[in-house]
């Protein structure tokens, strides 16, 4: 924004899609003005010992507005995103009403205009996400919607999904799928296996996810439509996507921090803070998701940030809604838990998801002169303890409460404006 003073991010190491280098970064008028050594400006933001990277991009955020503002709003969600290093988030359409029409798309985009993070929205594939009738995708695409999904549910009907994919190719948009066969995991609340058997909780078999991944790969072959698999959670899902990518199909996939850090054993506490869809799975699945991130099968880390009020999680496991907070812990979990080279890790959190979301003209750009100044400055060495109370979210359902993590966002720059300075939100 042009009314913000020129400043320099001083003393950091720039990491972007082009590589790594020690450099100062001067920002003015919403763009990167200069990148080089020993640069100066009226104002200095300390980046010594830090990584200066393109702002992070989350392709999977539940903002709850409209409809469940007691759990989160566009504003509080976006503030948490900014604190987590994100400069762009993609809202999921499972609001009330669902984001399945131009009117609701406009409402969410309007709410996002003043937020400390660029808020984009996906649109529903089917009317009210009911899986019965195609939503007006062209009408929403005309407002800039680039990703369509019924997230929270997968499109169950084979023929309807085929038609949605065919129709989407005409609009040049991507379909994103929450893969879960309802008939196979209906009534389940956690991964079906050793722990669900012992705990007496109805399970969701891994095959419920895998069947839909398999079907959608087949439909991508049939229709040529780009499909993005949301929150892959099983070893065989990862393997199928790996083969599909190798076969040249237009397929991408994301994984969440909880699916590469937690297993179904956590459910033994019966605390629904560990209840999520798809569910936490086995150690072998966690290892496979990590391997998928390492070899590039899974190109994006997405939060699936899903706020729920404390009351709604103060219920027995099978009665509580699934979902976990993620925006303020995702980067630190990736830095702490994944042994990925920085450019690969940041690629998975910035420029790869920017492409999936269709926002790569503004976000995930190289840190170079003339580029939009959407940046984050990360202190990779600092350790901190997760406290849900201290988060910007209206909800508290973090499964990482009390966990010590390494790496935290120091500054976040949105269109040239420092929206987070030294870990403090500026608006």
């Amino acid at each position, binding site marked *: 924004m042009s009314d913000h003073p020129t400043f320099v991010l001083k003393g950091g190491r720039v990491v972007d899609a082009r590589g790594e280098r020690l450099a100062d970064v001067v920002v003015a008028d919403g763009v990167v003005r200069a990148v080089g050594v020993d640069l100066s400006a009226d104002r200095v933001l300390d980046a010594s010992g830090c990584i200066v990277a393109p702002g992070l991009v989350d392709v999977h955020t539940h903002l709850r507005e409209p409809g469940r503002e007691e759990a989160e709003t566009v504003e509080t969600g976006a503030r948490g995103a900014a604190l987590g290093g994100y400069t762009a988030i993609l809202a999921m359409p499972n609001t009330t009403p669902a984001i399945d029409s131009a009117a609701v798309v406009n409402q969410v985009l309007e709410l996002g205009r003043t937020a400390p993070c660029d808020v984009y929205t996906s649109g529903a594939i089917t009317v009210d996400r009911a899986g019965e009738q195609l939503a007006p995708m062209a009408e929403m695409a005309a407002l800039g919607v680039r990703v369509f999904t019924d997230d929270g549910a997968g499109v169950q009907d084979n023929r309807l999904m085929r038609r949605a994919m065919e129709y989407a190719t005409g609009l040049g948009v991507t379909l994103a799928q929450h893969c879960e066969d309802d008939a196979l995991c209906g009534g389940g609340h956690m991964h*079906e*296996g*050793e722990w*669900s*058997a*012992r*705990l*007496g*909780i*109805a*399970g969701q*078999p891994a095959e419920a996810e895998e069947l839909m991944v398999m079907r959608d790969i087949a439909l991508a072959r049939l229709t040529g439509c780009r499909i993005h698999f949301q929150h892959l959670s099983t070893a065989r899902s990862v393997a199928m996507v790996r083969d599909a990518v190798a076969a040249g199909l237009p397929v991408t996939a994301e994984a969440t921090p909880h699916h590469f850090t937690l297993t179904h054993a956590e459910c033994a*506490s*019966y*605390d629904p803070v560990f209840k999520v869809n798809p569910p936490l799975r086995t150690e072998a699945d966690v290892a496979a998701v990590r391997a998928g991130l390492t070899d590039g099968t899974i190109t994006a880390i997405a939060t699936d940030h899903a706020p729920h009020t404390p*009351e709604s999680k*103060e*219920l*027995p*496991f*099978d*009665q509580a809604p699934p979902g976990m907070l993620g925006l303020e812990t995702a980067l630190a979990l990736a830095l702490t838990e994944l042994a990925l080279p920085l450019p690969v890790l940041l690629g998975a959190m910035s420029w790869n998801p920017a492409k999936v979301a269709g926002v790569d003209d503004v976000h995930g750009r190289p840190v170079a002169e003339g580029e939009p100044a959407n940046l984050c400055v990360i202190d990779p060495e600092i350790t901190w303890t997760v406290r849900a109370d201290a988060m910007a979210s209206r909800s508290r359902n973090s499964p990482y409460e009390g966990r010590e993590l390494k790496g935290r966002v120091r500054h976040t720059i949105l269109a040239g404006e420092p929206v987070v300075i030294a870990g403090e939100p500026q608006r």
Partner: protein
Amino acid sequence: MIGRHLLEVEDLGGAEGIEEVLRLTDSFVEVSERAIPKVPALRGRTVAWLFYEDSTRTRLSFETAAKRLSADTMNFSVGSSSVKKGESLRDTARTIEAMGIDAIVVRHASAGAPHRIAGWVDASVINAGDGWHQHPTQALLDCYTIRQHLGGIAGRHIAIIGDIKHSRVARSDVEAFTALGAEVTLVAPPTLLPPSLDGWPVRVSHDLDAVLPTVDVAYLLRMQRERMTEALLPSLREYTSTYGLTIRRAELLRPDAVVMHPGPMNRGVEIAADVADLPCSLILDQVRNGVAVRMAVLYLLLGAGTSLGATGPTDPSGSPETTQTRAEEATGE
């Protein structure tokens, strides 16, 4: 031995802890047989029932046990309470506790509900059945009944027959029976077994006729009619013909073998009416022992610090010598 709560069989601390409860139960069986079957052990203590699921026999059994120990009891009837008005589990539990309750006995259709409550209150929480998960006092009364009739559990072969998948009784019994050294065989169609038996020290069979001649105990589970709608079985008729304890099958049992069932029975489905009434059927002994076992559990959880001797003189029925000794042993640990 036992901690503050009894949420699952594991809380009893293995064979030693289970044996301790069974020994104490002996004393309370003796109390129950007296003309005035009542001791003052828990006078001044209050126990509340929080039953989110219908249960006549378990609640009545706990209530009888508490009253024979002279505890005050309250019934938090969910059907007519604020729970119906949308009060959360946490608020309900804390509300009850705020009234000065010492123990909450919980029955809930959701696995883990008593565990959650235990995390929110200071009172002792006793699990009286949570979903498909656990029913620890049922396991204790089953152990007691087997010991009473067969002299011991170690080395015995026990078949648990029927809907294991959805059974809290099966999960608790497997843990308790195997902890005490029994061999356990689960007999069920694959659709009624848990999705994984990793870590379960049991054998599995789908052939009841082959198993029955080898068992000391045939433990039948209730077959619920709603399983038909979930495509788990073709029909009740087929279930009865393959897994029901019919008169013909009962003849395969060894002469000294016994038949058990946690109730309520579906006569004619998992058990033939005539089999339920045979002398080898311990079904009513289970019910009878349930009261004494629950007295033992309540005493172990709430009796610490109270001495039967101190309250004894004011008790018209007197305090049984054996109970006193056992109780002091128990609370001294």
